[in-house]
């Protein structure tokens, strides 16, 4: 039997849950935590943050990874329902495709608490806590324009189309950048949030447009891929700005590579979702509106050192 790494990690996660020390659990039941692949440290931080807070509050946890596959996500909802989860903490696999499984969980009496990505319906999930991507993208774009000296040819790497966050960040970038007529976008391509795809796209974009001065990326994993391609081509003069606030990009900023990124408070968002789930299970209400925005913070060489695992120390 062969097992992919992903399945192995999932199996490990399940095994870890099954082996979880009963001393920790105060019998408040099971909380299912479902996110995209932990290959992206952003989603790993969410899962770790949610799991830690859930255990502190006395829940058992099951941590699952849907790999941005709606079918897989649907199966995981069935698993959570079958296992009698008390609540589901979810970073979802698509704004449209996720409506049905969240509804199915609701019909089974299991409330869902969404983080990071929205779904296109309200009134089904109990909470949707998302980063203020538009505000964050504007911060990143302002820094990008300043670094570019308000002029020059640049490239935009866009995220996965099915994800609302890809569109909103692009729109936030352009609402700022397009005010500067000397900023010229020579290529705009989706690398689907992926590091390897961003590397390949950046390579070919560089061949077609050797004179580019800057790259603005919809997330940090694509920024890391693009930076590797720029380094390989000896083009470390290119100004690169990302989005997420990962430790990888932090290290690159400190070394003078990538210039800036925008921190989403992912760790806190995940913890907050668990706290709201706990509150909801105890009282029947979170005391908050369903959809909640959390502001993002610009990270550059002045504050990069204070960044650790998607949280900024004071």
């Amino acid at each position, binding site marked *: 039997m062969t097992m992919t790494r992903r399945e192995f990690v999932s199996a490990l996660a399940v095994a870890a849950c099954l082996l979880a020390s009963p001393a920790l659990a105060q019998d408040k039941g099971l909380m299912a935590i479902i996110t995209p692949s932990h290959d992206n440290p952003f989603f790993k931080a969410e899962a770790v943050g949610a799991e830690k807070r859930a255990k502190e509050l006395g829940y058992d946890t099951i941590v699952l990874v849907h790999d941005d596959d709606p079918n897989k996500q649907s199966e995981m909802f069935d698993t959570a329902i079958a296992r009698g989860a008390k609540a589901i903490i979810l970073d979802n696999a698509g704004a449209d495709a996720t409506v049905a499984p969240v509804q199915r969980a609701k019909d089974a009496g299991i409330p869902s608490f969404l983080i990071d990505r929205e779904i296109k319906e309200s009134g089904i999930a109990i909470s949707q806590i998302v980063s203020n991507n*538009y505000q964050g993208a504007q911060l990143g774009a302002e820094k990008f324009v300043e670094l570019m000296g308000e002029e020059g040819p640049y490239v935009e790497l866009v995220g996965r189309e099915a994800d*609302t966050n890809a569109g909103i960040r692009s729109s*936030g970038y352009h609402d700022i950048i397009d*005010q500067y007529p000397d900023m010229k976008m020579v290529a705009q391509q989706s690398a689907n949030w992926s590091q390897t795809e961003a590397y390949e796209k950046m390579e070919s974009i560089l061949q077609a447009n050797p004179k580019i001065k800057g790259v603005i990326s919809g997330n940090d994993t694509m920024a890391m891929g693009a930076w590797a391609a720029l380094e390989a081509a000896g083009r470390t003069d290119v100004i690169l700005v990302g989005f997420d606030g990962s430790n990888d990009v932090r290290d690159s900023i400190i070394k003078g590579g990538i210039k800036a990124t925008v921190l989403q408070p992912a760790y*806190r968002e995940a913890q907050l979702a668990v706290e709201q789930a706990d509150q909801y299970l105890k009282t029947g209400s979170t005391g908050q*509106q369903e959809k*909640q*925005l959390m*502001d993002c913070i610009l990270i550059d060489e002045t504050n990069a050192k204070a960044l650790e695992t998607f949280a900024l120390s004071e």
Partner: protein
Amino acid sequence: MLRQIARPILAAAAFACLSGFTIVWDKPASETGEKAVPQTDEARMAAYAQENWQNKVVPVIEEHVVPLAKLRGLVAESADKAGEAYGLRPEGEANPWNFAVSGEGKIVGAKLKSRAAKLEVDTDGDGKGDVTIQLGPVIRGTALRDAMPFINFTDFRDQIEFAKLANALNDVAHGRLSLPESDPTGETAHFEGVFTLRGDAASIELVPTKLTIGG
């Protein structure tokens, strides 16, 4: 909001199909005086902003407006106390406060030939600008939207629609301003508007809802 209207219609249509009835419209909607539903997010939000400006937005500002000098004193003591007293913000953790303020000061700088035109105003008499009045047409930020208690993110489809709403409200504010034709540097600006508090209130970026220059 529009989806809430659309749903019963769809439900009625589905019912009609299933039960074999046919709906016969007396007249097309365009002939009955009802407005056609604008299709793009931008157009829908622009209509929403226009509809609600006079009846809902203006009263919120009038009710909460505080003199800027007074607010600065309060913020210096405690931003949260100032916020509790005069601030407006959506529920939820880590949402910054927004304030409606009025004030006046000498215009010490003006950038008029820009898509993001602005005035720098000195309101504390030290000769340096401490309020940036955004003249637009491109006005940054979401202060106007986030200051409105009747606007909830939950009622909107997603962040994209919600961002268009912020821009639409800024557009209405811009459209109601009478802009200076020549460089107003040295003149006095009397203003009212909304801003988002970030850090202290030493320098603020205002979305103006009223502006007179001169005097």
